[in-house]
């Protein structure tokens, strides 16, 4: 019955959350600038050496070419971190109890967080890609492949944001909420995002090959090189949909459960 207001209530909550991001720049600027700093750090500090390992004599520009797609994926993971913090912060406020006593579409509160986080992710992505282009990254992708990259990254963002919503709901405090998604930032390092997987020792390599960030990074890297994403693309989509479905169910359960006191 209240689902007739699903869109309207979600839009209202989205406006509220966007205003929060605007009024709390300390939180919203972090995911925008953190990937840029990583990009500059890895390319200019480590890139000269790392690039030679990618292509013999490739140096800095070879590494930028390798890293940029990985860093784009890393950006999505970084932005999702903020979701857990803002959801956890919201849940400590009395206004959530007020929302629950009103006849509104229940998941609207969560939907607002998901869409505002998605907006923040897209802004972060635009800044990361612009910086990469500015320092010399020249992807070969045609518009169709760019579109596919955007689609895949959006899928990943939705998946990680829902996961982060669930983290925000289960966290007992804002402090725990900010720590929980930390592993989301670690996973790209243990994937093909920063260095090729076959350069890792056996155990790490096995893990890297079987975790979602490797096929996602590989798919993005292929698409940006104007190649088909192949089986990595299929794996990436399956991972994203599976994480989204599981996290959504989990988050809804956490939000709707009756509190213990």
């Amino acid at each position, binding site marked *: 019955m209240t689902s007739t207001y699903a869109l309207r209530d979600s839009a209202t909550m989205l406006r509220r959350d966007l205003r929060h991001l605007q009024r709390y720049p300390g939180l919203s600027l972090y995911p925008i600038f953190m990937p840029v700093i990583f990009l500059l750090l890895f390319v200019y500090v480590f890139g000269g050496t790392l690039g030679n390992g990618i292509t013999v004599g490739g140096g800095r520009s070879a590494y930028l070419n390798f890293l940029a797609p990985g860093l784009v994926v890393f950006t999505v993971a970084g932005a999702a971190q903020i979701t857990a913090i803002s959801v956890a912060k919201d849940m400590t406020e*009395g206004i959530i109890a007020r929302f*629950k006593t*009103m006849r509104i579409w229940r998941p609207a509160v969560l939907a607002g967080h998901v869409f505002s986080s998605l907006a923040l992710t897209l802004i972060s992505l635009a800044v990361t890609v612009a910086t990469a282009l500015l320092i010399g990254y020249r992807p070969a992708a045609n518009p169709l492949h760019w579109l596919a990259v955007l689609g895949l990254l959006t899928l990943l963002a939705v998946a990680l944001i829902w996961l982060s919503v669930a983290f925000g709901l289960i966290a007992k405090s804002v402090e725990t909420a900010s720590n929980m998604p930390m592993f989301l930032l670690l996973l790209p390092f243990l994937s093909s995002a920063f260095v090729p997987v076959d350069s890792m020792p056996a155990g790490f390599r096995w893990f890297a090959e079987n975790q979602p960030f490797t096929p996602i990074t590989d798919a993005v890297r292929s698409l940006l090189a104007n190649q088909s994403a192949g089986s990595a693309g299929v794996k990436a989509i399956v991972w994203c949909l599976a994480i989204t479905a599981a996290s959504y169910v989990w988050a809804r359960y956490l939000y709707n459960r009756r509190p213990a006191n």
Partner: protein
Amino acid sequence: MTNPSSPAITAVDVRKSFGDNVVLDGLEFAVEQGSVFALLGPNGAGKTTMVRILTTLLDADRGTVRVAGYDVRREPDAVRDVIGVTGQFSAVDDLLTGRENLALMADLHHLPHGPGRERVGKLLEQFELTDAADRMAMTYSGGMRRRLDLAMTLIGAPQVIFLDEPTTGLDPRSRRTMWEIVESLADDGTTVFLTTQYLDEADKLADQVAILDRGRLVAEGTAQELKQQIPGGRIDVQFADTDAQLVAAAALGMPVADQDPLSLQIPTDGNVATLRRVLRDLDDAGVDVVDLAIHTPDLDDVFFALTGRGADPAQSTTEEEVHR
């Protein structure tokens, strides 16, 4: 509302436990439409739990609760449609301005944009928040937050309003403003269910008062009816020394056993003639009075009268342990 003469709220045999801790132990009450009902009790009596059940935030373990004719467990959305809730803890959005907070509520009540904004303006004015309307709520004082909170509750013109300790922590002036607002709501025919720790608040606002103690209703009636159950007030008189106390006790015909050697507690019905007589008797006996205080019945007295314990929950726990 299906039947205009049916009660706005009914609770039948409401029970709720958290683990082994029984919080509500078979509550029954009815609140007439358009009346103000006060649930009076100390901290930890179960008041907030009752409000949470009434406002669909919590399910009772047993019993039936109906608000505006709807069962809160089976028809929560119908209940949410007609109620407004101002909880004990501030439910305003700190990062939004006062006006934005109210606009948020208007949108969530699905009011059309124009009339919604018009209502926002009116409420800002009515609650004296127009000047602060475009400041973030985090800059508001306690009293302003509470007013904003209540204004947000009223956006949807609810039939039944729940106020959980609406004046706890407010300064006397804000408290008075709050009372005036509640009175004007009642005058407009809104049913108000409020919880409070203060007898004077229940006395001032409520048509019907129920006293909650450890999850049970120990008394119910109008404030007047309840006060008649309470022994009258007393006059506390302080003396300079024990001799003065003994002389005074003799003059007033009172026993001195069990009393503080420097004071007397004289029961009184609170009227001036009694006070005058006590003072004259003390004067006639030539007793020097160091200090005198008139003590009118308060929640402590009500509790003591009805339960044989003080209202302080910490104190009652120790007494309970002594009994074991």
